[in-house]
Structures are given as C-alpha cells and as structure tokens.
C-alpha cells in the first residue's frame, strides 16, 4: 500500500499539480434567477394546477414562490430537479423533525442523519466513531423491520 502523505499546497501550486478541480458553483439565487429567466419558454408540467390554492406550475415559475404547502405535492415531479440543484443534490430532509410528524418519519429522519454522519466520519478518517455510527444505524434499522 502506498504511504499516505499529507501536503499543504497554496492555491497556485495545487492548480499546477492538478489537485484543484475547477467547479462551477451557483448560488441559490442564481439558480432561481436562471430558472425564472427561462420562464417565457414552456416547461413540462406548466399547466398543472394545485387543487388547493389554484396556482399553476407556470405561475410558480414566474414568481419564484409557491402558493401553498400542497404545491410540494402537486408539483413534486417538476420541483424535484430544482430543489436538488438548489440544495447541492440533496433529496431528503435531514434535521429537526416536526412535533406533529409520526414515529416512522422521526425514525427515517434519524436514520438519514446517522448515515450522513457516518459518511462524514469516513471522509475524515475517524474510524472509531464511524464504527459506532454503523452500530447505531444497524440497531435503528433492525428496530424498524421488527
């Protein structure tokens, strides 16, 4: 196995050595603006209407704001790519769970949170805490299937 070495490079050297991969990052408002810029063009699902508040997906695209909480349900397929782009690819909530959410939702969110922490622990090479997290995840998953 090759020996692991830690090196500290300045931005210029790192670039010369090909360490930094230039990525294009967009701010959330850029994403939304870009989205709104294309509003004149027709987009799939434009005519879909929320049965609760009555706005169409097209109206949302013009305003950048939804009409009611049910729009997340009514426009789910069209919102999905937009939400993923705005939130660095995330597809699910990880974090505080509403007091009104049922136990299953609570457990699912806890599970996602633990899995995320496991990934961070692995990335940071904290193997001991990764092992603990793996056990916690296994325990939660077995409680779920039982």
């Amino acid at each position, binding site marked *: 196995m090759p020996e692991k070495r830690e090196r500290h490079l300045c*931005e210029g050297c790192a670039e010369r050595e090909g360490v930094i991969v230039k*990525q294009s*990052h967009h*701010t*959330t*408002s850029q*994403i*939304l603006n870009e989205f709104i810029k294309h509003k004149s063009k027709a987009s799939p699902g434009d005519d879909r209407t929320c049965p*609760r*508040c*009555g*706005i169409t997906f097209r109206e949302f695209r013009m*305003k*950048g*704001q*939804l*009409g*009611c*909480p049910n*729009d*997340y*349900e009514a426009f789910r397929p069209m*919102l999905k790519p*937009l*939400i993923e782009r*705005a*939130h*660095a*690819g*995330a*597809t*699910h*909530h*990880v*974090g*505080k*769970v*509403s*007091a*009104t*959410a049922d136990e299953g*939702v609570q457990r*699912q*969110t806890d599970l996602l*949170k633990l899995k*995320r922490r496991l990934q*961070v622990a692995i990335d940071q090479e904290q193997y001991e805490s990764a092992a603990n997290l793996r056990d916690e995840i296994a325990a939660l998953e077995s409680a779920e299937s039982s």
Partner: protein
Amino acid sequence: MTLDEMARTTSAWLRGDGPLSDVVISSRVRLARNLADFPFLTTASETDRTEIYRQLVDGITATSAGSDAMVVDIDAADPIEREILVERHLISRQLAAGEGRRGVTISRSETCALMINEEDHLRMQVLGGGLRLDELWRTVNDIDDDLASRHSFSYDSQYGFLTACPTNVGTGIRVSVMVHLPALRITKEIERVERAARDMRLAVRGIHGEGTEALGDLYQISNQVTLGVAEEEIIEAFGNRIIPKIVEYERTARKSLSQQGDSQLDDRIYRAYGVLTNARCITSEETQALLSPLRMGIHMGRFDQIDIATVNEVFLHAQPAHLQALHGRALDDDERDIVRADYLRERLAR
C-alpha cells in the same frame, strides 16, 4: 419601551463583546416556518393574513420567551420607525417594504425578533454579539419547540419544513455571521475568501442582505443549503471551522499590513478619524466607510482615542432613521448630512 426610546440605545448585539469580536461583529440564526392550516402568503387573502398574524402574536406572547416582547404592527408603523428596525437588523427590508398585515415581536434584550408575514408566515431570528452560534441555536430551537406545541407547522416527510420558496425548504435555517474584513480588502485577498465561500455554497453579502455592497468592510456570510444537512451540522461548521478560518485570515492580513509599514497603516486610521471629527457635511455611506479603519485600529491596539463601544454606537446612530429619531424630527438628505457631521464631532472629538 417605545421605538423612539429604543433608537436612543445601542443594540445588545452591538456591544462589541463576544467571542472573536475583533473580527466577528455578530451572529444570527433564523428559522422559517409556516402554519399548516393556511396557504403561503402569495395566495393568502387579507383575512388569512390577519388570522395568521393574530394566531402567531397570541402564540408568541404566550411563550416564556415572548411574554415580555414588544409587538410592532409594521403595517401601522411610520416609515422612520420601520427603518429604525431595519437599521437595528430586527426586521428585513422585505418586511419593512411589504404590504398588508405584518409585524414583528422583539424581546426586551433585542436578541429575539420574530417576523410575522414576511416571505413565510414566521421567521424566528436570534441575534448576538461575536461568534456564539451554539447558544443562539439552542435559544431559537427552544422557541421553535415552544411554538410547535401551540401551532401546527407545515411539514413534509421528504422535504421537512415547507417554505414559500423551495430554496429554504428542509430545516428552514439560515445561519449568518457578520464579519469585519478591512485588512483582507486592503490586501485584495478578499476575492479569494469570497471564491472559497462560494465553493462551499455559502453566500457572501453586504450587511443589509442580498444585493447590498460591503459597506464599511462588513460582510455577511451565510449558508444557502437548507435541505439534506442537519441544523447542528451547519452550526458546527460555521462555529468551529468556517468562521474561525476567516478570522485567522483576517488576523494574518492585519499582521502583514503592520509589517509592511506602520506609518501607512496609522495614516489610514488617523485620516479617517480626522475626517469624522472635522467634517461639516457627511453621508451615511462615507461615515460607515471611515469607521472601518477606526474599528481595525482599535482592535490592533494602534488607536485609543475612542473605544469600540463608541464606534458601534456611532455606527448605529449615524444611519438615517436613527439620526432623525435622535434629532427629534424628519430631515431631508442635505439636512441629515449636516446633522450627522455635527453629531460625529460631538460624539468623537477629544
């Protein structure tokens, strides 16, 4: 306390204390929530807005944190009162400029400001001086728990807390830290910091939010991603890694400015002091820009004619709405510049 009395005091978050306060002016944590039984404000009727306002004011004032809060009906407030709240960072420009029934509840210490009917039904903000995100998160989380036992908030099992704009969905959290980065601006390293922040999906803005420039070398750093990351994770990243790193860069840049030439640096500081204490007519923008080298000079131990609490007081009171409140009447632009210069000479000259 009335808004007029408030305008005469300095905000608690501007006392100039708190961890890393040589660079970090203040921290803020905000949570966005919407009542499940109402549409978002884009489609809400005036009756809905009034009912949302009533329910939330009742709910907030019934909590332990909100029992001593001042309730300000923004729709009924006059323009100077609204602007005072914006200048004190207690409400957003959007709430000040909005329409219809809307308001804010402000705790006695001015550390909690809960906006009602801004972009979402409720935006809970907690503010503090220096870098103290753990404490602010605990406070706002408790307020949220307390309110959640009285109201039902919109929530989806996949997307978490639902917000009017999908860019806030999930946790609805916005962590924002105001930092003073004069040395990084002088050494032109600020662009690198901005680039690095963007690469981490953070927003870097001027002090009055989106689209405002960094007046007085003050920058607001905030998270943009609210989905797929837990609140504690964001608080931890800001409090333990991102902001301490920026503080370290700024301190290094200040040191290197000192090494490059003391007299040049002192000249910058004392010229600013000279103008502030001798001008006969000065704009708010110029005042903010000149206070920046003074602030840096005090923290670097190179300037001791005034202290940091005075800089912060002047920083707040030289703004247009505060100046008019202190003066006791509305002033036009030209009058304001003269009154401001008089105020600065009186407050800063030794």
